[in-house]
């Protein structure tokens, strides 16, 4: 792309030239050229396995490239040690920020370099005042004597960024920082990052949310299969083009024909859990896909978990397939025809150490067991094979530990697990989180296919565009109440309107 040269008359803070890295059996990066300018936020996108992690690991000094050079300032490296990388001002803020939970904010900021008195002891007064002063300089307000375990996720992420900057970081790599943030928190985080940029900070921003890339980045680089596809000014490109660059083909937003039938599958009647949600009335039809959305903390998350039995549900009546739904535990929910896809796949979705086969059949073991609780292995294999085929799960074998699959395939395994219970109602919580664009399409196809089989589906998500593409109806929750409804086909069903409803009338962009 020829846009690269004319972007800014700024100097590159970091360039990578001709970097290649091969693992046994996989060429992860092939002569990658890439540079980040001083004072820019540089988006880095690409589907899982495109080489982002490898590239970042090389920048962090964790991996040594097979060939190529890294240029920081006026110094050239073939490979750095992690220590050198830090010394050169490269910092990494991961998705799950690792903090010293039981220590205070101030200690976390100054860890490893606490101010000391003349006699060599830690000067606690100074620790707190200095931490406060540093945060003030960045315009971040926080009680520095508070323990980190008492902070929210966004605050922790901002603290991590601040920490990196205090460590004289010149280039901060943000790896999916918004994955578990609400919209307001995302706004706060973006405002913070932008303010830092204005003060001269440089960032590499890795994200699956292409909208966010447009919202915050100056330039964006696309990686595909270990190659740089190109770098572009965000001002000169749009989402479809970006997607084309990423997947190498033109992928439209997913759209589908409604499979909604008249028959009612589930009725929620006056569901209420104090402090989370109240007066939830909902009717769900066969083959219908409903989107549930709202700000974080508005109660949708708890509603989903409550329906499934991971959390207390509170009072209210639920009728599922003409029977009273009484499940209070996941297994009972499965048995009564409701399945749930948790948001955090690594923590709740998969038992990563165990095989694909075992993961798929966990909830249906009761149906597979014969005499003495023994599992009918033949039948199990047939079932698992069926789902591997139907959902197109790419795995060398059924026995592959689930953690060794790619993100999208892992999610498909979770889907296979849920599908195996043959549910009447499926509750999906952020089903496309952490999977690449192509796998997203696969997942929508799976959802579509299940709806076509008559399963009623509730998708709890903040990806409004995706919801619009997939759902028959979208319900918005505000402070624990369902406040607005958007129906497919109505012209109100636009991202802007839904966003407005979510934010309670105030659009905050």
């Amino acid at each position, binding site marked *: 792309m020829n846009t690269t040269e004319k972007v800014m008359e700024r100097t590159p803070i970091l360039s990578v030239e001709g970097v290649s890295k091969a693992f046994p059996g996989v060429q992860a990066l092939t002569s990658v050229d890439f540079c980040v300018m001083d004072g820019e936020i540089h988006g880095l996108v690409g589907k899982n396995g495109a080489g982002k992690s490898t590239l970042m690991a090389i920048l962090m000094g964790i991996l040594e490239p097979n060939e190529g050079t890294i240029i920081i300032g006026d110094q050239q490296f073939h490979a750095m040690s992690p220590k050198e990388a830090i010394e050169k001002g490269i910092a990494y803020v991961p998705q799950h920020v690792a903090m010293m939970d039981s220590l205070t904010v101030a200690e976390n900021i100054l860890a490893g370099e606490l101010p000391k008195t003349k006699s060599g002891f830690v000067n606690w007064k100074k620790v707190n005042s200095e931490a406060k002063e540093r945060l003030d300089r960045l315009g971040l307000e926080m009680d520095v004597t508070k323990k980190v375990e008492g902070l929210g996720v966004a605050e922790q992420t901002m603290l991590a960024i601040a920490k990196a900057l205090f460590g004289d970081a010149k280039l901060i790599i943000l790896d999916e920082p918004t994955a578990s943030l609400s919209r307001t928190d995302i706004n706060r985080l973006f405002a913070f990052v932008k303010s830092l940029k204005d003060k001269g900070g440089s960032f590499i921003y890795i994200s699956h949310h292409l909208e966010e890339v447009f919202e915050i980045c100056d330039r964006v680089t696309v990686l595909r299969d270990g190659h740089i596809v190109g770098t572009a000014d965000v001002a000169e490109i749009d989402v479809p083009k970006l997607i084309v660059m990423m997947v190498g083909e033109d992928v439209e937003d997913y759209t589908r024909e409604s499979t909604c039938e008249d028959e009612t599958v589930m009725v929620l009647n006056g569901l209420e859990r104090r402090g989370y949600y109240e007066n939830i009335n909902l009717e769900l039809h066969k083959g219908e896909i409903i989107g549930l959305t709202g700000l974080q903390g508005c109660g949708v998350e708890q509603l989903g978990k409550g329906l499934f039995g991971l959390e207390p549900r509170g009072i209210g009546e639920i009728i599922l397939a003409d029977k009273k739904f009484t499940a209070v535990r*996941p297994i009972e929910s499965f048995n009564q025809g409701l399945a749930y896809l948790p948001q955090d796949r690594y923590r709740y979705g998969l*038992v*990563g150490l165990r095989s694909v086969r075992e993961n798929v059949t966990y909830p249906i073991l009761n149906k597979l067991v014969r005499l003495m609780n*023994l*599992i009918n292995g033949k039948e199990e294999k047939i079932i698992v094979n069926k789902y591997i085929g139907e959902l197109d799960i790419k795995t060398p074998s059924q026995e592959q530990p689930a953690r060794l699959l790619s993100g999208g395939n892992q999610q498909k395994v979770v889907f296979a697990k849920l599908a195996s219970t043959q549910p009447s109602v499926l509750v999906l919580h952020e089903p496309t989180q952490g999977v690449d664009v192509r796998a997203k399409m696969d997942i929508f196809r799976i959802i579509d296919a299940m709806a076509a089989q008559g399963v009623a589906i509730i998708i709890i998500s903040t990806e409004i565009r995706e919801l619009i593409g997939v759902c028959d109806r979208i319900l918005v929750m505000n402070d624990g109440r369902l406040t607005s409804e958007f129906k497919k086909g109505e012209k109100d069903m636009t991202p802007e309107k839904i966003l407005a409803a979510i934010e309670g009338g105030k659009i905050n962009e």
Partner: protein
Amino acid sequence: MNKGQKRDWVKIILDNFIWLILTVLFTYFAVNVPNFTSKTNLLNILLHASVLGVLTIGQAIVLMTGNFDLSAEGMVSLSTILAMWLMIEPGSVVGTAQGSGLMLNPYLVIFIILILGTLSGYIIGVLITRLNMNGFIVTLAAQLVLRGVAMIVSNGQIMTGSPKAFNWLGGAKIYGIPVSVIVTLLLFVGVNYMLNQSKFGRELRAVGANPDAAQASGFNPKRTITLAYTIGGFLAAFAGWMLLGRLETAVSSLGSGMTLETVAASVIGGVSLKGGIGSVGGAFAGVLLLSLIDNALNLMSVDSFWVESVRGFIILLALLIEAQKFRYKPKVVHEKEPAVASDCK
């Protein structure tokens, strides 16, 4: 492609390292230690492996859920003392064989101690899962309490004179093979098969590997862990029964030091201390290794003072292997896995 296969070999070797060591050691001892391969001695090795083996099954099950059980040896002590106390005469001699005088039927006593073991395991499980107490220390404390009660009941004395019917499990032979060996082998084969094929086995490993996901998959981790401890308690009492039958003597110090051996045997046999991985069959190999070494140390004239150190070194070695296993990172499968791609062409 070739490289990938080579790495898998590394994994296979690491996974089955224990059997390799076992074979090598066995051959070495067979050649170098006189009488090692005699039928009596081979049966002896299995006999040693029996009580330890039964305890190790319990330990391995608990370890698979990602927990520890240090209480089993206390249960061995209490179950033997209690059984003896219920069965023998009140002591006529000062400070000896102070039975309760209940003179209960041996079969009833067996039933009582098995129930007791099960119950104590259950209570420990409840303390850990419901009250969120640290399993390591809870079971350590339970060990003390159980052994303490054994001391109180026995008044610190040695008790002898258990009835034949009770001793059958530990002392009798069928066709020249000790019953305890047969029972232990059957237990291992049975439990191993059960855990590999049953729902409960799945549940154990799922809970051990990731309790949250296991819960969301329809399991009940608290119940599973409690059940694992309950089984552990039952097996500990069972091991006590077996041990008492073999020794015909009960004393409150019985079983001391066995906990460590069960953990070591399990780890050597490939059960992960982090839970979720391993099999009872592997643990059996660990048990065999330990009793093989004990036996060989007894047959060779190793200086008495060295025995403890040698055992410590062996456990350390086993750990080293376990540690290497976790340092070995299997290759991550990418979407463009050659295996899949080649199928297309």
